[in-house]
């Protein structure tokens, strides 16, 4: 796995950071995110207790949000050619094995350039600390 280079490639909305804070409090430790692809819940980030998912040489660390690492498969990253990912939360339970982002909420990644200015306030950007 490689270290992030240059400006942060992962940023988060206040709602996502609040969800992470609550997960940390409930689980007693940080979580990790892995961007998914493919079928069904593909394209959403999967959230696990940190260390649950085995990171390999194929994975890139995009950055950390409040101490929680965010990874993407190098091949997906190349195919998507997206400079920056915005971690947010959206309505609905998560699918597959991902932890929820709170009651009836799941994590999503958005392209910051696609975030509509009239979207709910949770889309206000916050850089990671």
């Amino acid at each position, binding site marked *: 796995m490689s270290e992030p280079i240059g400006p942060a490639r992962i940023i988060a909305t206040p709602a996502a950071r609040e969800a992470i804070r609550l997960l940390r409090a409930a689980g007693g430790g940080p979580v990790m995110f892995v961007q998914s692809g493919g079928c069904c819940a*593909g394209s959403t980030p999967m959230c696990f207790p940190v260390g649950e998912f*085995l990171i390999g040489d194929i994975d890139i660390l995009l950055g950390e949000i409040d101490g929680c690492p965010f990874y993407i498969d190098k091949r997906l990253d190349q195919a998507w050619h997206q400079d920056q990912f915005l971690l947010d939360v959206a309505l609905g339970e998560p699918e597959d094995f991902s932890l*929820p982002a709170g009651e009836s909420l799941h994590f999503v990644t958005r392209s910051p350039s696609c975030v509509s200015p009239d979207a709910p306030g949770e889309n206000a950007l916050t850089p990671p600390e």
Partner: protein
Amino acid sequence: MKYVPPGLPGSIVSVEPRYENFIGGKWLAPTHGKYRVDLAPATAGPITEVADSTPEDVELALDAAHAAKDAWGEASTTERAKVLNAIADAIEKNQDMLAVAESWENGKPVRETLAADIPLMVDHFRYFAAAARAEENRSTEIEKDLVAYHFREPLGVVGQIIPFNFPLLMAAWKLAPALAAGNCSVIKPASPTPWSILKLMETIEDVLPHGVINVVTGPGAEIGKALAANPRIAKVSFTGETVTGRLIMQYAAQNLIPSTVELGGKSPNIFFNDVMAHDDEFLDKAIEGLVLYAFNKGEVCTCPSRALIQADIYDEFMARCLARIASIRQGNPLDTDTQVGPQVSAQQIEKIASYVDIGRNEGAEVLIGGQRARVDGAEFADGYYYQPTVLKGDNKMRVFQEEIFGPVLAVTTFTDDADALAIANDTLYGLGAGVWTRDGTRAYKMGRGIKAGRVWTNCYHQYPAGAAFGGYKISGIGRENHLMMLDHYSQTKNLLVSYSTKPLGLF
């Protein structure tokens, strides 16, 4: 014809206020007594409640499966086939009821569940009943007095995790071969679609030996790992996205058990110029073949979501296809005239909308659709409907590279066979593909050249039990369907037997 929604007066589908797990032939309340609401995507309203299970419930299901596995594994293939055929008969007898339940919970139009999902389930159980009986073990005369006998033995108890897009058919794909090979199953349906498989269990519980199939519902984060990482399963199979697929393989590696993962695709559907050589039934079939991207509202791992059209027919062929797409009827999934129903969940429609935005930002041209659909009927005002959409662009765009899992087609052109093949293979995935041409040689060469597990040739979206299905590249590992599945759900036992009395003479 319009079916009445499940649970309403006059519906052919009865609905209990809540459903428990099906374990050991009984309906067992979840250990912690928690339930979650199951929604109908057409109305966003509740259907019922299902168990919100915890790892304790997975253990109970594994207890029941282990208690059943010896008797089931030792049953003759004749006896097992009888049960599989009885399952098929029970499903067939309740075909309309299951079709309506499946449509209402998933959103897929009932014309599809009546014509495809449920009849295919029936056929899968009958196919594997027949396959198990017809299968012969093999023996080899290694030397005159030394014989190698090979027997298939069941793995034992398998863990199976199914997706939301074909809740019943994917259950049949996984259960039929597992049971035929003598295994017992603990199966977890997807979080958005836990109910129709419980209706299936109501339908077949009287013909099923206790503990052979055990269904546990609940969130994947809570019970997915409890099942997939459990040292008491002998194989795990999963259909879903790539990260959970890797996690499943990671757990399987830690337990040293086999796994099968089917993880989606971005399937090319290639139309050569000779499809327009005549204006005939075949051209009509090819046009329908392109529009099949909207089958099951695009929520199909093999959705033909990239159309590659030879440049010299693009304008005329696409015009015919767009006219067909414009005539698609969206609405009540329980109306047999409806062709496209709602997406399965709020999550999915949000994802689709965000991908169309990404496509627009990348410069893709929206040829049709491109927004949420409003359909007739006040009760469907909150349903998750999205217009069948076509985006024209370039294969390097993200909407050509990532699975949108909705009725969104990315279309581009190619010049010649080599160009078509290069674009088709320029993807991380390799699950399905389609080739449309009147030239048999070209069809064969393209089919062999495309790096995908299934190349539909002059057809698409057919899923017979006797054709192997599975992915190349990151679309997954392993296959489903076809009698080779008996292998995938068995151990091989070799007895190496000497009929000679002579010592080796070494000691």
